[in-house]
């Protein structure tokens, strides 16, 4: 507790009015990412849509709408009372589970790229319940791991088991879609939260072992393989030569590599404009940054992510209660590993999974979830300030 006390003074000196009580570093970093993301989504789609006789601003408009809804959600999450957050959590979790169940039913959920993960909405919008489930899992687990009903400063085995159940049900449903990328990200966040909760370390060790065995088993049984192969094939233009399963990944690497140090300039990339990388406004948005902004620009984006995550660590450490700390750890692990998973895939370090890049990729559900996560961090930051 001494550490926190020492920092009280520092916190008081901060200007209250400049950011309406928001963390300035976090806000600026996320704001920059949203701005860059908007440009990249536009750059990824403008020329192709124009040359195919479609509205070149189609994605831009929708992306801006998504961001505006996201800002509203973030604002709501920031100002909401801590206690009502806890009250809403079981509802959000329950809705998430219902959504994840419903999405698996043919006719209700739609299948895109081999995974049943979306609810189609009017106007071409889609909702992906798995994204919102991330929030429910993080907040739900945080509640269970922070409300000790006994004389201890760490959760008991019982708390951990309950928390794991909260995560296991949605994760199981997402596995059925299947959406391995999301499963991976949630799993990492769950392990990180349990670790940070102060629970006995054998839980962490055990969970990591289970995850490794599960991953190995799934690969052996062909669950991951089939899915990935299907995904790969579905991407490739059916009219073009089947160029092999590594086509997208190779294209992505070439596109990033061809950007060089300074890039081709925004809107100028022939690889992007020729649309050689599929899904380049969503999962492969980083290729657009790589080609058009070069090492300087895409390195800067990486630094923005690092800033967000490091800032979240600071907020976690300064949090006056265990709940806030848990939420921070959950959100930051989610952001960090989703970023690593996505950019790692683009750069050929990670296997191919379809997860969007937080704050940058086009996509409503993901944007909303990210912004709620951002709101949660702000909420906890605000709480520290009293």
């Amino acid at each position: 507790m001494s550490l926190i006390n020492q920092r009280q003074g520092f916190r008081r000196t901060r200007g209250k009015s400049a950011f309406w009580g928001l963390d300035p570093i976090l806000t600026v970093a996320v704001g920059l990412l949203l701005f860059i993301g908007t440009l990249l989504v536009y750059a990824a789609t403008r020329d192709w849509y124009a040359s195919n006789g479609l509205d070149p601003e189609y994605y831009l408009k929708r992306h801006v709408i998504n961001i505006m809804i996201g800002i509203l959600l973030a604002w709501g999450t920031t100002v909401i009372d801590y206690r009502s957050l806890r009250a809403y959590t079981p509802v959000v979790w329950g809705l998430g589970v219902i959504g994840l169940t419903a999405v698996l039913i043919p006719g209700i959920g739609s299948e895109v790229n081999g995974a049943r993960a979306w609810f189609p909405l009017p106007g071409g919008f889609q909702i992906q319940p798995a994204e919102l489930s991330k929030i429910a899992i993080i907040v739900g687990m945080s509640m269970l791991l922070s409300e000790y009903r006994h004389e201890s400063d760490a959760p008991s085995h019982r708390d951990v088991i309950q928390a794991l159940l909260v995560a296991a049900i949605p994760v199981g449903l997402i596995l059925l879609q299947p959406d391995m990328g999301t499963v991976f990200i949630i799993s990492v966040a769950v392990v990180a939260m349990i670790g940070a909760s102060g629970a006995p370390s054998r839980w962490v060790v055990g969970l990591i072992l289970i995850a490794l065995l599960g991953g190995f088993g799934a690969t052996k049984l062909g669950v991951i393989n089939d899915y990935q192969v299907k995904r790969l094939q579905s991407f490739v233009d059916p009219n073009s030569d089947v160029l092999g399963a590594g086509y997208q990944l190779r294209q992505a690497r070439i596109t990033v590599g061809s950007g060089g140090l300074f890039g081709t300039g925004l809107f100028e990339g022939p690889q992007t404009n020729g649309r050689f990388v599929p899904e380049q406004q969503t999962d492969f948005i980083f290729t657009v940054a790589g080609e058009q902004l070069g090492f300087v620009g895409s390195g800067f984006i990486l630094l923005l992510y690092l800033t967000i995550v490091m800032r979240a660590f600071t907020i976690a450490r300064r949090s006056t209660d265990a709940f806030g700390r848990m939420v921070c750890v959950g959100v930051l692990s989610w952001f960090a590993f989703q970023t690593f998973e996505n950019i790692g895939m683009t750069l050929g370090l990670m296997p191919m999974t379809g997860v969007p890049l937080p704050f940058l990729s086009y996509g409503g559900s993901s944007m909303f979830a990210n912004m709620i996560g951002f709101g949660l961090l702000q909420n906890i930051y605000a709480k520290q300030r009293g």
Partner: protein
Amino acid sequence: MNLRSRLSLLVIQILIISLMVALLGRLFYLQVAAAPQYKDAALSIQSRDVVTPATRGLIVDASGIPLALNKVGVAITVDRTIIDKQEDKGEAVLRSLARLLKIKYVNILQRTRLCGELESGKRAGCWTGSRFQPIPITKDADPSLALQIVERSDQYPGISAAPVAIRSYPGNGDVNAAHMLGYIGPLTEGDLAGENGRTYFRSEYIGKAGLEIQYDEFLRGTPGIKTFTVDRKEVVTNTRKVTNPIPGNHLVTSIDTRLQAASEKALAAAVARSRANGYRADGAAAVVMDVVTGRILALASYPTFDPNAYERGLTTKQARDLYSESQGVPALNRALQGVFAPASTFKVVSLAAAASAGYNLNANYDCPGQFEVGTRIFRNFESKDQGTLSMKKAIAVSCDTIWYKIAFSEWIKDGGLKPKSNPNDFFFKAAEGFQVGQRTGIDLPSESSGRLANREWRISWYEQNKDFYCNYKERASKAQQTAFLIELARENCLDGDKIRAGDAVNFSIGQGDTVITPLKLTQMYAAIANGGTIWKPTVGKAIVTTEGRILQTISPEKVGTLPTNKATLKFLQSSLREVVVSGTGAGAFSGFPIAVSGKTGTAEVFGRNADGSLKSDTSWFAGYGPTNKPRFAVVMMVSQGGFGSSSSGVGVRQIFETLFGVQGSTIVPGAAIYPEGKPPTVLPKISPATKAKVAP
């Protein structure tokens, strides 16, 4: 926060920082360290080069008559990248194309297979280019058929028809010259990979043989390139750069169309004559050279082929026949790729050897019917005893036994089977002086060097073959196990690394293991005629731009001087005149109004033909004229053609007749190919429309 959770937080933080650093490192590698290679890769994905081939330069004869030019043809091409995707791999389409073009389906199938797809031995007529080039079935199609393909393109997916520039060998004045001109063809993967140090574009055609390949870098020109940027659907989004094609330069040769045609005709007639006399005559060659300049005026090989067949599209059979033994391997340019024992034409070398060994050329020598070397008997031609002869007469009547005797005694002087450490080797040295066993260095590809069977060659031959001969009973086939061959093998095993008496005497009459090309013999006789200069012969005379500017003059080089002194050379020249006056060439040249010189040769050939018959003699005649002021060397060789005089001698006379404008025994005024007695030195005006003069 307990210690454990604080520690966990730190671990997570370190883990995340490491992962982010890993991403940054990877990003640095891709975008900075490896950026150039990825930029190249991206460029090859986005860019499409449309290549407009340059107009190939003409090849013309010394008076400007085109030997190779370009014309517009209609190409019907098959796109493998499209038909391979069809369910039946394009069979139905190719079958209907075969019906339309009235050619066999198997031919189209073979033509559209990449050579690498076929087993070796079944590659005749295969596509030497790559899968990504449109493969022409013909480039000279009937336009109405092409129109049907264009109009019913839905019925012919993957087949296109379009006008193209094609190479044409017009055959002005009935000239063929296929071996010398060569042909053009698609690039191989090796060419594209830059194996010969040049860069090409996929759709280009380049010279594949003869002058077309020799002077390809000049003839080819520079293709025009339009570089487009395309998107994933191959839609052009941008034109990046445009360069216009630069037409290729013209090649002026020293060939004369009429002389070339006459040489081909004389060659074909010589073959026909030999065959009428019962010989197989499976191949022949003729060369005409300007002895003063070293330029080639005509060069022909028999059997020949139609140089236009390549552009028209070879059938599988045609492609196979080009290299088939039963068809006489028409693709082989016998003038510079065929090697044969020179027989008596080689006696000019022996005469030089005898002179340097100190034999008196003006003395008389015995010419008995046979000469014994140990247990072996070496016979004169037809075992004829000619009594005592002057050396000059001995050359004229082609006495062999004189040479056996001289060669044998020189061999003995050099130590026989136990050679001295520093033997005189007059015969080998004379042959080396004539540059036997070396390429002439003519500006045509794939020349054979022939072989000089001297002591060094013997030793290397022995190294390669001693295992076979020393284990003959195990190594040789059943058919080879005759008493004679077994005895021969035993001898070869014993002292095969040494020049034996038999080798020495055979060498002196141009038999045995020494072989030369007809072109080599031409070079040798040209040197005798011109007073001793050995020329590196040339066919090309100059490279001329399309504007008529001379880009490069090609001149023959002096590559040596004969090892004979003036007196010996004079004697040699007078002996060669005597051959035509009173010797073995007299019959062929009886009544010829211009004095010419020459030497016959009738080479024994060992071995059997494919049908088991013994091989007939190689017929040679090497001559030059006019005797008093030599200008032209003419050599003819008919493989398995019988006697030197009747087959080749008569053929050479016919070539001389055309050269000098002779009909029978009279000179027709103004009929000579070169009215001034020598080939033109001025370069001609070049136009594809120039036609051959009609012989008077």
